[in-house]
């Protein structure tokens, strides 16, 4: 069964990519949806089978890589984490595949799109199912490849191709970190299999040198890998550019699944991370800073997809923060809820863009509520979920993370404060997005000659949205924090579910005692109420600022009073420009220098110089080489005669 989960998307990709006739869009769409839906059905079976026993299963495929003492079999594992992940990937994947058929209706090469998309699902499944670092790395780079191909799907635009390349290369920086992590792991533990590493760490009561130091470097390397894939500072720059791809791609890859691979990987290796508290502090800080940093950029963006992209970066920051403070279960829970509501938001934005004929600037929207009632409804649910309104899923997951950050012994309250501010920003920019698109007066384009009324999308586009909206509300109740659940006599189902997987190794118990210590419920209530208050305040401000035109809002406020700050936010802190100026351009100059000066002049020059030297010195000997055959003949003869005469005596 588990093999079918993998086989279906791969088969779909092959059929669409190579084998099927390419004319029929319906056929390629149907095949792609069937492949993912089939995988989802199988994944459900696999999950239920696992859920019944709660014992992780290993599935051995074949001996993949073996050299010297190193072995990396192609082996899959189904446990709490991968079981959940395959459900998310295939489930949300199916919905997005259905949706994409409508969104990509006007395309000529839909077969290509769906082949890539199915390949992506296959690679992502490989990533989460692999039982060793190598198989995970195959998926890890494989999803990067699909992301590259899909971002550059409309390759006729130079910018899209460049964005795809940027995504691939920035990810590769992280991948080198991942690779070095694998090398270090193999060096110190002699294996790369998760189950073996996990049991090793589990059995070790204390860690002697050199392990603590080694673990610091191992986890740091892996974290660099996670930074690349999960778009953390300073490697987040590819994600906003990745919005050049079609919107379903943004929803599936750049919101719901691929970008969370970093969090997934850190959770897989949580036993390492728990044992390296120094790395954990770095992880937490990077996560918190990313959350706030990206949220501030999102405040002023005008492109609807860019806002969502920065929002994704910010939410990923939350998840990384959760990992950093040791609350891997909260991180994974946020991953789950985020996958639902962010996919919903992206697809909703896609519907808006679709209805507006590929207009993405929110300043040219407005008043769409009348024309797109269903889209408006589900978007509203998505926004409420992401900003953390009580009762919606984001509320439970985000609050849990903030709480765990608060009780983190080193700089806990500061981390909480940063996350808290970011939550306020989130509420503000999400409501701003909603207001600009759906409320207020419609945008009057004076120069437009034709005036289309935006229409609601067909059923196979809004259908998935509704499902996602229900999920965005529903999944939250899987992980109701303990102190709330106790009110009705329950407990945090999700944390309980993950308990078997995420454990603190014996050697690191001391450092993480606070996670299980009793805390005052009043404090927890207080933090929760304060964040609800902040969200209400921020959302109210946004509504006040943006519902009536002319738009007042943060843009005009900042633009009027702090023009430079406004410009800085609008320019995304000019990080891209800085990278370009400080890294890419010098590297290109070095490259040209190496080629034109070092290679051509110096090295090749030396080689040629040797040649010229020989040619020059040969002139000393070659003055007799007149080229006249008769002279040569004469000298031959004279020489022979001389030899003869000499030999006679």
């Amino acid at each position: 069964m588990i093999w079918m989960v993998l086989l279906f998307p791969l088969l779909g990709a092959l059929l669409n990519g190579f084998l099927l006739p390419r004319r029929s869009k319906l056929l390629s769409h149907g095949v792609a949806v069937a492949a993912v839906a089939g995988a989802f059905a199988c994944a459900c079976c696999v999950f239920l089978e696992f859920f019944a026993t709660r014992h992780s299963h290993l599935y051995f495929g074949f001996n993949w890589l073996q050299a010297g003492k190193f072995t990396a079999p192609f082996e899959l594992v189904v446990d709490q984490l991968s079981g959940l992940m395959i459900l998310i990937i295939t489930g949300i994947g199916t919905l997005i595949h259905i949706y994409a058929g409508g969104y990509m209706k006007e395309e000529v090469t839909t077969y290509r799109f769906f082949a890539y998309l199915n390949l992506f699902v296959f690679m992502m499944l490989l990533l989460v199912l692999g039982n060793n670092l190598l198989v995970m790395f195959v998926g890890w780079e494989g999803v990067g490849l699909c992301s590259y191909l899909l971002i550059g799907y409309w390759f006729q635009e130079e910018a899209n191709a460049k964005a795809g390349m940027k995504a691939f290369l920035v990810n590769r920086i992280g991948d080198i970190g991942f690779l070095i992590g694998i090398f270090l792991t193999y060096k110190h533990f002699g294996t790369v299999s998760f189950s073996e590493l996990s049991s090793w760490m589990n059995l070790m009561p204390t860690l002697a040198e050199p392990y603590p130091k080694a673990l610091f470097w191992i986890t740091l390397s892996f974290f660099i890998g996670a930074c690349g894939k999960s778009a953390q500072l300073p490697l987040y720059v590819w994600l906003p550019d990745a919005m050049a791809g079609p919107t379903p791609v943004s929803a599936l890859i750049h919101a719901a699944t691929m970008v969370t691979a970093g969090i997934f990987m850190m959770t897989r290796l949580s036993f390492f991370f728990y044992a390296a508290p120094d790395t954990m502090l770095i992880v937490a800080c990077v996560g918190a800073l990313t959350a706030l940093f990206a949220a501030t950029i999102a405040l002023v963006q005008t492109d609807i997809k860019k806002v969502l992209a920065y929002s994704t970066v910010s939410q990923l920051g939350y998840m990384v923060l959760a990992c950093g403070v040791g609350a891997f279960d909260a991180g994974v829970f946020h991953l789950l809820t985020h996958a639902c509501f962010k996919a919903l938001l992206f697809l909703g934005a896609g519907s808006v863009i679709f209805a507006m004929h590929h207009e993405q600037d929110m300043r040219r929207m407005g008043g769409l509520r009348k024309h797109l009632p269903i889209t408006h409804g589900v978007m509203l649910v998505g926004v409420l979920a992401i900003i953390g309104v009580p009762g919606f899923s984001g509320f439970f997951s985000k609050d849990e993370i903030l709480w765990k950050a608060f009780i983190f012994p080193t700089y806990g309250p500061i981390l909480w404060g940063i996350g808290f501010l970011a939550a306020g920003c989130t509420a503000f920019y999400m409501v701003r997005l909603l207001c600009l698109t759906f409320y207020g007066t419609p945008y009057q384009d004076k120069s437009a000659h034709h005036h289309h009324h935006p229409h609601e999308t067909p059923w196979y586009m809004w259908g998935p949205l509704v499902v996602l909206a229900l999920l965005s509300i529903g999944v939250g109740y899987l992980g109701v924090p303990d102190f709330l659940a106790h009110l009705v006599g329950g407990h945090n189902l999700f944390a309980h579910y993950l308990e078997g997987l995420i454990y603190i190794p014996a050697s690191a118990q001391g450092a993480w005692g606070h996670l299980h210590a009793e805390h005052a419920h009043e404090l927890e209530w207080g933090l929760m109420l304060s964040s609800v208050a902040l969200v209400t305040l921020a959302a109210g401000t946004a509504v006040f600022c943006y519902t009536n035109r002319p738009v007042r809002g943060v843009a005009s406020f900042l633009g009027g009073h702090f023009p430079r700050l406004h410009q800085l936010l609008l320019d995304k802190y000019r990080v891209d420009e800085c990278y370009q100026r400080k890294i890419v351009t010098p590297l290109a100059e070095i490259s040209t220098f190496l080629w034109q000066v070092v290679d051509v002049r110096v090295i090749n020059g030396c080689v040629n110089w040797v040649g010229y030297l020989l040619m020059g010195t040969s002139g000393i000997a070659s003055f007799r080489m007149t080229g006249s055959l008769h002279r040569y003949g004469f000298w031959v003869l004279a020489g022979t005669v001389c030899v003869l005469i000499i030999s006679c005596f």
Partner: protein
Amino acid sequence: MLLLWIHSHIATLTIFTPLLVAALVVLCPSLWVAKWLALLGAGACFLESVHMWHYFVPGSGLQFTEMHAWLPQWGIQYFVGVDGISLLLIMLSTFLTCLLLIGAWNFEGKGQKTFFALLLFLESGMLGALMAFDLVFFYVCWEVMLIPMYFIIGVWGGKNRIYATTKFILYTAFGSLLMLVAAISLYLLYKKEFGVYSTNVLDLYRLSGLPAASQFWLFCAFALAFAIKIPLWPFHTWLPHAHTEAPTTGSVILAGVMLKMGTYGLLRFAIPLFPAVFLDFAPVLSVLGVIGIIYGALVAWQQPDAKKMVAYSSVSHLGFVVVGSCAVLHSMISPEALTGAVYQMINHGVSTGMLFFLVGVLYDRRHTRLLDDFGGLARPMPWFAVLLIIATLGSVGLPGTGGFVGEFLILLGTFQSNPAIAILASLGVLLGAVYMLTLCRKILFGPVTHKENESLQDVSWREALVLAPLAVLVIAMGVQPGFFLDRVRPSIDHLAKTYSEYRLERVELPPLGCCKGGCSNGCEE
């Protein structure tokens, strides 16, 4: 009877079939017949190598040996054989030659018959060098390879072909002459130690009492010859010229097999013959390899000419092979790294060969290779785009392609012996993606900027026949490395673990019809 005879002389047959066919091709009056004859000859040679692959017993010994006295009074023999280090390279050479002949089927220009004959001649030389276990025979084959290549570049090359081919010949001949001197010196030293003359490599491995100073110089001479051939930085400057001027076929065979002769020679001769000096030199070679990796990648990045870019990428990729061969760890070479190095040789042959073919496809259509003359080709040439992307992925070492297996194992092994080298080398993985994706983007993506490119023909059936097997191989080598490595692993491990006192034993020829596939001990039963 015939089969039995073929079976017992398989190594010799594989070496000399192409030579014989080359002679027939030259004599054949009809071009059409000559072409088919050449293809049949190359195909037969490939089948012979498949036969060897089939009957190859996984083990560290030397198999399919054949020994005849050649100049007995000087201890010179004709001695050929196959072991795990050469097996994959032999397969690659015979396979690539078949594809090359198909690729050059509708060759534009004069002298196609001669061209095909030279290719076959070249194949003979390469196979001879790969199978020779007699120093003199090896040297003969090593030099014989240069002659057809000289003409292939010099006659059918581009504008600067004479400069390029002269440089190629003089540079490599310079190295090989030093090697000849060293070989003669080794021969005399053997006589001094054992009292008899021998050029048998297995005998030479037994040399133990070499004076340190002479070991040093001998190693330098051998290593320099191989370093020029590889080409190791900074001896690489002949390569971009030779590649750019050579016709497509020449570039493919040059990158595909001939460059590996350098790394193969390193593994076969320089390392096991002079282990003590190698131990001292390994860090130097690794550093040169790493410089090659980064330098080659950086220089490739800004090249305006697609072929030059691929040529410099070879410098980078072969840097990996050198680094992998020099990952010394506790007086043994890291087996992981050495496996990776052997695998990377094959993988580089496949993926870079494919890239040169693809650039050739473009050149046939547009008679230019400048990246600026292309752009947006993915629309008029979708299959070409698919193939180029597969070749690119193989070249940048994406997991699931052979390049990943090779590079990963090399880096893994090197990391155990020298983390700094491995970390620097893994920068090459990043830079490799930088230039290869730039190549892809400039050729395939963006708007179509030149009108001529609008109506370009996609790959023809004949071209697809050449490229599709390579594409399949790129992926198969990443998905099932075991298929390729299981047979040769014992040899590699043997070299890695015992290189300091390397011995190679001759293994009896398995009887015909036994030892199917990978069975390791079925023969005795």
